[in-house]
C-alpha cells in the first residue's frame, strides 16, 4: 500500500492523538465503565491501522520492526499469565486469585460510595493493562504484516 494524498495524511495526523487518548482511557477505566483491555486495545489498534492506510506499510516498517511489536505482544501475554500465577503463592492458593484487593497498595481498595473511585478492583486494572498492550501490539502487527505482504506480492507479479 503506497501513501495516500496529502489531505488524508493531514487529517490522519490530526485525529490520531484523540483516538489514541480515547482508547487508552477505555483501557484505564476498564473496571469502572463499559469496556476494558480488549475493547480499548481494539480502538488503539484501529488508530494505528489508520496510520498504516494513510502513510503506507513501508513507511511504518521503516520506523518500527515487526519483530519488536510482536515482542511487545509477548510481554503483555507474559504479564497476564504471571499475574494469574501470583495468585497461587498466597494462602488459600487459587489460579487467577485477586490478591491485591483489600490491601493498602495501589488499586487495593474495595468499592466505596464514590462509584468513580479508580483506586479499586485489585488485580483487574493490571490485567486490563496487560491485555490492552497485548491486543494493541497483536492487531497492529497482524494488519501491518498483511498490508506489507499484499504490496510486496503485487510488485513481484
Amino acid at each position: 500500500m503506497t501513501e495516500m494524498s496529502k489531505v488524508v495524511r493531514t487529517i490522519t495526523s490530526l485525529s490520531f492523538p484523540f483516538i489514541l487518548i480515547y482508547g487508552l482511557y477505555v483501557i484505564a477505566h476498564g473496571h469502572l465503565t463499559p469496556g476494558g483491555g480488549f475493547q480499548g486495545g481494539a480502538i488503539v489498534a484501529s488508530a494505528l491501522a489508520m496510520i498504516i492506510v494513510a502513510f503506507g506499510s513501508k513507511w511504518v516498517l521503516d520506523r518500527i520492526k515487526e519483530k519488536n511489536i510482536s515482542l511487545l505482544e509477548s510481554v503483555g501475554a507474559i504479564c497476564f499469565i504471571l499475574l494469574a500465577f501470583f495468585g497461587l503463592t498466597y494462602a488459600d492458593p487459587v489460579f487467577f486469585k485477586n490478591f491485591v484487593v483489600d490491601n493498602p497498595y495501589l488499586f487495593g481498595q474495595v468499592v466505596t460510595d464514590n462509584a468513580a473511585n479508580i483506586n479499586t478492583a485489585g488485580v483487574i486494572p493490571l490485567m486490563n493493562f496487560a491485555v490492552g498492550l497485548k491486543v494493541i501490539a497483536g492487531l497492529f502487527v497482524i494488519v501491518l504484516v498483511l498490508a506489507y505482504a499484499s504490496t510486496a506480492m503485487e510488485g513481484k507479479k
Partner: protein
Amino acid sequence: MDKRTIIGSIFFTIVLVFILFAMLMTHPFGDISESDMDDTIIENCQEETGANNAVTSVVFDYRGFDTLGEATILFTAVAGVILIFRRVLHD
C-alpha cells in the same frame, strides 16, 4: 441430477431438520429458570473483587481462565501471520 447434488441435498436436509429442532427446543428468551449463579455474582462481585463494573469482574476474575484462552487465540493468530509471511518480510 448427478451424484454430488443428491448427496449434497440429503446432507442439507439432515442439517436443516436438526437446526429446526434445535430452534424449537431452545430456552425461551428472557425466561430465567435457574438464576443462582447470576444472583451470587451480582450480590458479591463488589465486595469480592472490588470492581464497580460487574462484567469486567466476571471477565477478569470469576472467569479469568476463559480470558486466558482468548489471549492465546490472539497470540496464535499473530504467530501464524508472521510464520506465513516470513519470506516476504525478510527478502
